[in-house]
């Protein structure tokens, strides 16, 4: 099953609606493998029901691509087996760090935009791809602070990583929007500079802009019009069929409202058909 069109992140709060009342626009499912790996009970049963119906794409949270600790061989081995079982066409994780001296922070912490950091990440992506036996994509994160002096901007950092790693880009449009507000740059210009020829998947989500000092990427609000517009812009610049995922992780709305968001996204996402 090819991954195209609009997808939704599988969260436990949504599972019954996804399985019992899926909207026609829902074309694929994304999962965080850490929520399913080495776990019994309800979760594998729900995942199996979804996998029978939709393509599954894995999106990891804890590889810590920019971290100083060695990549965990046990994690990679378990992930490789899991990814193979669910048949994901690629695996993605974030341009961040999350593990320090064996301490798992369970968040996406920002890397400095430097050549040294980009090359460090690229080497680890290559290592991970070798173990996983899968192509990888890296995702631009929302960052609220930058450590020290940046040598380049976010798009050049992402471009250097994907070029040196030989991997793809998961372009998170909402993250670019949030970063543009928090760091004062033009979101469209930043997207235009991203390595768009490497984009294999797009994320969109809601954010909280109630604090004038800091816009927060919450995945707990409806998509804002500005993000729909930025998505349309990104897709026009990419110029090809790229699957788009709606991330909703908290403060879940009525299922009908979430379906309406998927339907609106579906009007924006191109629908090329396989030859």
């Amino acid at each position, binding site marked *: 099953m090819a991954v195209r069109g609009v997808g939704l992140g599988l969260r436990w709060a949504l599972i019954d609606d996804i399985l019992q009342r899926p909207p026609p626009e829902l074309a694929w499912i994304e999962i965080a493998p850490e929520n399913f790996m080495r*776990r019994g009970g*309800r979760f594998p049963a729900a995942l199996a029901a979804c996998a029978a119906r939709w393509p599954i794409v894995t999106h990891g949270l804890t590889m810590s691509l920019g971290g100083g600790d060695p990549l*965990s061989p046990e994690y990679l081995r378990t992930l490789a087996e899991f990814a193979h079982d669910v048949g994901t066409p690629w695996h993605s994780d974030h341009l961040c760090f999350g593990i320090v001296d064996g301490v798992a922070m369970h*968040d996406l*912490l920002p890397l400095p935009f430097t050549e*040294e950091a980009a090359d460090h990440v690229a080497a680890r992506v290559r290592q991970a791809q070798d173990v996983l036996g899968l192509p990888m994509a890296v995702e631009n994160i929302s960052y609220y602070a930058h*450590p020290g002096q940046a040598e380049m901007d976010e798009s050049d950092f992402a471009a250097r990583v994907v070029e040196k790693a030989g991997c793809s880009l998961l372009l998170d449009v909402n993250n670019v929007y949030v970063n543009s507000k928090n760091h004062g740059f033009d979101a469209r210009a930043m997207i235009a500079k991203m390595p768009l020829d490497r984009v294999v998947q797009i994320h969109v989500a809601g954010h909280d802009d109630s604090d004038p000092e800091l816009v927060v990427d919450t995945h707990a609000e409806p998509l804002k019009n500005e993000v729909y517009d930025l998505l349309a812009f990104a897709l026009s610049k990419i110029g090809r069929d790229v699957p788009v995922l709606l991330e909703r992780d908290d403060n879940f709305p009525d299922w009908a409202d979430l379906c309406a968001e998927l339907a609106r996204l579906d009007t924006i996402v191109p629908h090329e058909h396989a030859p």
Partner: protein
Amino acid sequence: MSWIGYQKSLCDLILAEDAPAADFANLGHEPSRWKAYRRMVRSRFYETIDHGFERLKNIVGSERFHLLVDRFLAIERPRSIYLRDIPGEFLQFLERHWEPISREHGLAAYVLDLARYEWAELETAYAYEEGPTPDVVPLEMHRVAVLAPAHRLLDLEYPVHRLGTDQEGGALGREPISLCLYRDSKTHDVETLELTPVAARLFVLIEQQTTALDQVVRSAADAARLPVDLAFIEALSVLLADLLERGVLLGSLADRPNA
């Protein structure tokens, strides 16, 4: 500061019990932005550990409970890449430091048992059956019996499993008890069985998967100084039938008679 040094500093500042804004200044951006990371990371850990210990948090009180979480984050720190494991790490922290913690925060003796019980519920719900399923045949006394993998045995000093979600445990008296928690294979719900001393001994021996069930029964009866008479055998039959019905007991190992 090297960028690896920056990672260590940020981690320290996020997990420390107290982190003045000035301490973030060395990281190279407005301290308020770094403090946002501190809030986000810590709120995720609070939420995860709160979820794991709902009854404990209600009884201890949210503020006092989060002081315990703060201490855990500062001195032991979360290690697992699986967020669902973090409540278990918090429990290990409580067990290792129980005496000073209970003294400092005035915690009743049953609180640690309640933490153990709540974690056992979660762990049973998540339990992962690794490895090939053993070849199981209908239960036979001369073969090794097999328990469902998703179960946990607990020996507690206080019957904390009887506490409701909104119940105070102040009057809970000491009453040593053995429990078996298991995951229903159809509903995935976690159920709790109170075990008699003989049944508890049976479970422990069955779990070891080294001895045929008839020898396990004899050992358990001997330990309890009970004769294996008609009454014992009738009670045993009822127990085994109930465990098979519940799916806690799967049957017997096919290929290990008289192991």
